[in-house]
């Protein structure tokens, strides 16, 4: 188990390093550059342009710039924003808590409602299963941007229950402001997780070892908890991890739609401004979230299924 954790941490570091190269390269090779944004519509003299480029280190070759950036990061310095001249760490840090809270609420919604819906469908064949199936097939067709529009129109504008843009202050106000965006993130994923849960539970319900548990006269609740649900958890947790990392990516859309001051909104703004150090940092955060989600799901699976424990160093 310890070996597995260590190997996963090593995997995380490797993935982040490779991702940083890829992101760094693609940012600087893409057309458009930060000094254009800074100059706006003004036409600078070649000397002025060169001065700015020199100040931003844009006149150095790409590998040198990458090396400077990397050594900075290893010393805890993520650089400074090219646009606002704030440190990247403070720009990213202020939105990080908000986005993490938003995704956490959404994950709670997805796990609670997705598993409940899937479990009801699996355990009550016939009409209930069909009804649950109808609900999931509708929800899986509602991506976050559609859900955002609908939720804002109904619950924020018409009913006025929630703010339509921005979040409140204080803990309660922030949570209240994040409920609608979390719903927008969660709806489609609830449907997906419900489907995975239903199929995983049905698969286990048909297994021989469950028949053994029933044949021994165990109470149904025990059979369901210790044999059906427990053994169905690996596929469910894999799906939940994948959906969670997807939700981190969807914050780009949802935070912009709801005016939530988080990492997602910051990403969109920084990309528009070609603020490379900030984009670099938030992209790596997204990659890290992805890798951590999958590592957590693998650890959970190894906790549940002893057959996976001996094979260490499995990569996601």
């Amino acid at each position, binding site marked *: 188990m310890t070996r597995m954790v260590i190997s996963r941490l090593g995997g995380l570091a490797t993935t982040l390093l490779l991702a940083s190269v890829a992101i760094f390269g693609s940012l600087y090779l893409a057309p458009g550059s930060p000094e254009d944004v800074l100059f706006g519509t003004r036409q600078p003299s070649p000397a002025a342009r060169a001065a700015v480029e020199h100040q931003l280190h844009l006149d150095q070759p790409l590998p040198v710039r990458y090396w400077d950036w990397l050594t900075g990061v290893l010393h805890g310095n993520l650089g400074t924003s090219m646009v606002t001249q704030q440190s990247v760490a403070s720009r990213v840090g202020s939105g990080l808590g908000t986005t993490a809270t938003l995704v956490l609420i959404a994950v709670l919604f997805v796990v609670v409602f997705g598993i409940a819906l899937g479990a009801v469908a699996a355990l009550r064949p016939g009409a209930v299963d069909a009804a649950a199936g109808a609900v999931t097939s509708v929800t899986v067709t509602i991506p976050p941007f559609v859900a955002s529009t609908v939720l804002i129109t109904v619950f924020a504008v018409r009913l006025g229950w929630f703010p339509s843009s921005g979040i409140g202050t204080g803990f309660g106000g922030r949570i209240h402001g994040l409920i609608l965006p979390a719903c927008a993130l969660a709806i489609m994923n609830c449907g997906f997780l419900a489907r995975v849960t239903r199929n995983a539970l049905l698969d286990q319900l048909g297994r*021989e*070892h469950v028949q*053994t548990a*029933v044949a021994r*006269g165990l109470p149904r609740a025990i059979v369901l908890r210790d044999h059906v649900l*427990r053994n169905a958890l690996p596929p469910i947790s894999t799906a939940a991890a994948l959906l969670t990392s997807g939700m981190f990516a969807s914050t780009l859309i949802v935070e912009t739609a709801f005016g939530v001051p988080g990492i997602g909104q910051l990403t969109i703004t920084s990309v528009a401004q070609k603020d490379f150090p900030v984009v670099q940092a938030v992209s790596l955060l997204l990659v890290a979230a992805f890798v951590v989600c999958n590592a957590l799901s693998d650890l959970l699976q190894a906790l549940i*299924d002893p057959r996976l424990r001996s094979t260490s160093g499995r990569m996601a």
Partner: protein
Amino acid sequence: MSADTRALLEIENLTVRLADPAADDAPKPLLEGISLSLAPGEALGLVGESGSGKSMTIRAATRLLPPRASVEGAIRFEGTDVTRMSGPALRAYRDTGVGMVFQDPRAHINPTRRIGAFLTEALVRNRGVGRREATARAAAVLGEVGIDDPARRLRQYPHELSGGMLQRVMIASVLLAEPRLILADEPTTALDVTIQSEVVGILDRLRRDRGIGMVFITHDLDLALAVCGRVAVMYAGRIVELRDAKDLHERAAHPYTLGLLGSRPSIDVRSARLTAIPGRPRGAFESGPGCAFADRCAHAQDVCRTTPPEPVRFRDGDVRCHLLDQIHSVPTAAREGGAA
């Protein structure tokens, strides 16, 4: 047949049908008119080709049929009708009355939980035995079924044990519950030949020592004859012949049973599978209005194809065949004809 109060398990005219959700036609029969009874401490063998309904019979006896199955007839355990048991009564019957030993222990034991959890679960959950006490009992029973170092085994997971070991664990789990009836569904088919006889030996010894009744399913007629006092031969969802094991070689009467006996390579070499009769095995739902064996039977006449034979008493056994008197009027000639 009236309710025999001394019987441990009594099945009377059991018919099981299964509705096919895809088709609208009438539910197809899986078992038809099964009747048998078992005394405490007795061993009854169920033999027959694949698909003849052996597993269905004992699944019906523990109410483990597929959800769409419908059941007619009576299944009584110690005089109580199993088919009408309520939830708690059914759980109590499954807990203390009957124990199942399945064919494939690797599939039938939860792979994610330790052997100790598997063995103690029923004691802890059903009877409120403390975990420590349950573990001590489990270790003792593992010793009884010939597993060394029980303390270590209890901490292991199923994938760390061999198939033979796991089947012993399965048997140990049944013994821990101290049931009065064991239903063993091909308990040795998934095991190596050398392990097979050991596992059968354990079951047989425990049955004798503890007076547990046992229904023993196997493809292997010789094994059934060795382990069981009586043997029921099944074909297409029916019991075609039921008689004492010691009589079967000399006095078998049904053409199908004769075919099974004749299909063995020799008396000394154990036959692997009962398949050497011309034609392929039939399910109950595939048979016509008459005798299910008619189109594979060398003696079949018109009556066999139109009227289902009822069981009749013949040579101290119960046999379903219209033609017993004709076939067995000249015993030696008939024996050869039946095996052809």
